[in-house]
């Protein structure tokens, strides 16, 4: 089989999911508005915090603002939930059909997860950048907006780290999918994952604000690669070799999660008892 033919199912499910999800324009606009709102609130909180005399704050207010807007722009990458279609399939038993496809189920679901998250993020990120990088400076609020990366290097490293973020997000979604397959319900995986992901990624509070003794551990765990690592690279908080190391860590986690996840999904699938019918 040629490489082209081998990849065809995966590319097809990726683009199919991407196109389908892009159609939900109302959801994108609603998400954008919500995220603007939360962005403003968070920035107000940071502003109050810094105004209260934060001489020893681990990052500048400007960087905290940048971090906040990036977080709002890429919010939909956070793997809060398993793939809803997979949860439906497990519930209805249609997951049996997934085993009838001549494809590697892990790679197949990974491709769908990628299509799903990219399609949800793309329109919101574009709108958010237009708002925070263009509109806010135009109306004289540039200080509260999202500036471009400080250097070409930072921009390039961020692009690389963003790829890691996308791949990591899909790998964690696949872990959640596997929990759904193993437990036959999506009731447990979602809420627990959302709490863990929000905290450990640095979404609630940048990891730099955590205590010194905790920070190295927080930076090393896989979920940091979803928010803290790429955003810190963006504004130059992580640069040079430490940025390169952080990106290597991201990709390392992607590989580990994918390998473990694939084995685990395979085992769960073999144990799955497709009932009835």
């Amino acid at each position: 089989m040629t490489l082209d033919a081998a990849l065809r199912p995966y590319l097809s499910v990726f683009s199919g999911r991407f196109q389908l999800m892009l159609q939900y324009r109302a959801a994108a606009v609603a998400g954008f508005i919500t995220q603007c709102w939360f962005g403003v609130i968070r920035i107000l909180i940071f502003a109050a915090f810094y105004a209260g005399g934060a001489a020893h704050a681990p990052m500048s207010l400007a960087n905290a603002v940048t971090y906040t807007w990036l977080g709002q722009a890429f919010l939909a990458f956070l793997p809060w939930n398993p793939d809803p279609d997979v949860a439906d399939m497990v519930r209805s038993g249609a997951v049996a059909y997934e085993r009838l496809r001549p494809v590697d189920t892990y790679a197949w679901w990974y491709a769908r997860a990628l299509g799903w998250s990219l399609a949800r993020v793309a329109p919101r990120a574009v709108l958010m950048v237009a708002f925070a990088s263009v509109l806010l400076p135009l109306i004289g609020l540039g200080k509260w907006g999202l500036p471009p990366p400080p250097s070409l290097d930072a921009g390039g490293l961020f692009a690389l780290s963003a790829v890691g973020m996308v791949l990591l997000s899909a790998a964690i979604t696949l872990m959640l999918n596997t929990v759904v397959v193993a437990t036959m319900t999506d009731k447990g995986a979602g809420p627990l994952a959302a709490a863990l992901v929000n905290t450990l990624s640095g979404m609630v509070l940048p990891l730099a604000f955590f205590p010194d003794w905790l920070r190295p551990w927080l930076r090393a765990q896989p979920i940091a690669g979803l928010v803290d690592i790429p955003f810190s690279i963006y504004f130059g908080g992580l640069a040079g070799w430490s940025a390169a190391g952080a990106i290597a860590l991201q990709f390392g986690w992607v590989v580990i999660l994918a390998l473990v996840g694939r084995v685990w999904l395979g085992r769960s699938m073999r144990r799955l008892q497709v009932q009835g019918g």
Partner: protein
Amino acid sequence: MPQILVEELSKTYRIAERDPGAMGAVKGLFHRRWRTVEALSGVSFQMDQGELVGLIGPNGAGKSTTIKILSGILEPTSGRCEVDGLTPWRERIRHVARIGVVFGQRTQLWWDLPVIEGFDLLRDIYRVPPDRYAATRDELVALMRLEKLLNQPVRQLSLGQRMRCEIAAALLHEPQLIFLDEPTIGLDAPSKLAVREFVGRLNRERGVTVILTTHDMHDIEALAERVIVIGGGRILADGSFAALRAGVLAERRLFVDFAGNAPEIDLPEVRVVARDGRQTELAFDPRRITAPDLIARIVAAHPVDDIHVEEPLIEEVIARFYDLHGAGES
């Protein structure tokens, strides 16, 4: 070598149980009780390329489990199974590329997508070469009369329309073996006939091997030369339907319309089932007295207007068979 080889296939499920009520739920937190259920215990059969076999049995008999193992979805607890030389659950990807499966109670098309886009997606999934795909698709569309349905989202189709699309979808990669698990369930009479006719043609004209499960005995009567009856996880019978009928319920019915009021019929080989006005319904065993003999004796003794013989309904035969083997759902 047969296309399908199944030897001593067994499958047990483990089911968690708990006592009823709140106390039972609390107890279940600390101590799980497991019950094992034998879905299949020692099923063996063989099939050759081009056969059409009906797999029947009561609910919970193990039909679907058998199909799921043969199609690579489930792994059996023990036993051997080869399809075209491949073990389905071990060489799943290579195996499933060569088979087609329709589960009547589920859909393999995508609810939100128009039928044609679902077909295109399947083309990519099964890596069908584009020219080959176009030819197969057009042929299936013509055969199943899907022209008007192609641009509708699957969710808007009626069950009958959807099932025609499902069957076409399972055949786009030209499998030489198809599994149809209750393909006519819930369909109206014309849709059932269409599905039956199509499956029959596929088998006769293309030599596609078909394994069909159904509760509709007319499907079996119309299509299957060979029937495998499963009950309680075992094979109860394997052979032609005629043989099954003869073995279980040989009895036939003779309906006689007499010229006048129906007379008393007193023949040792015959049992009177009903007598109403001028008509009498008689039950007889063709092994003890043949239909021509019986008719000759009645016509010789009484003036008769009309006479006809009926075989018992196929449903009756099967219900009787399940009873005899204690295979009814427990």
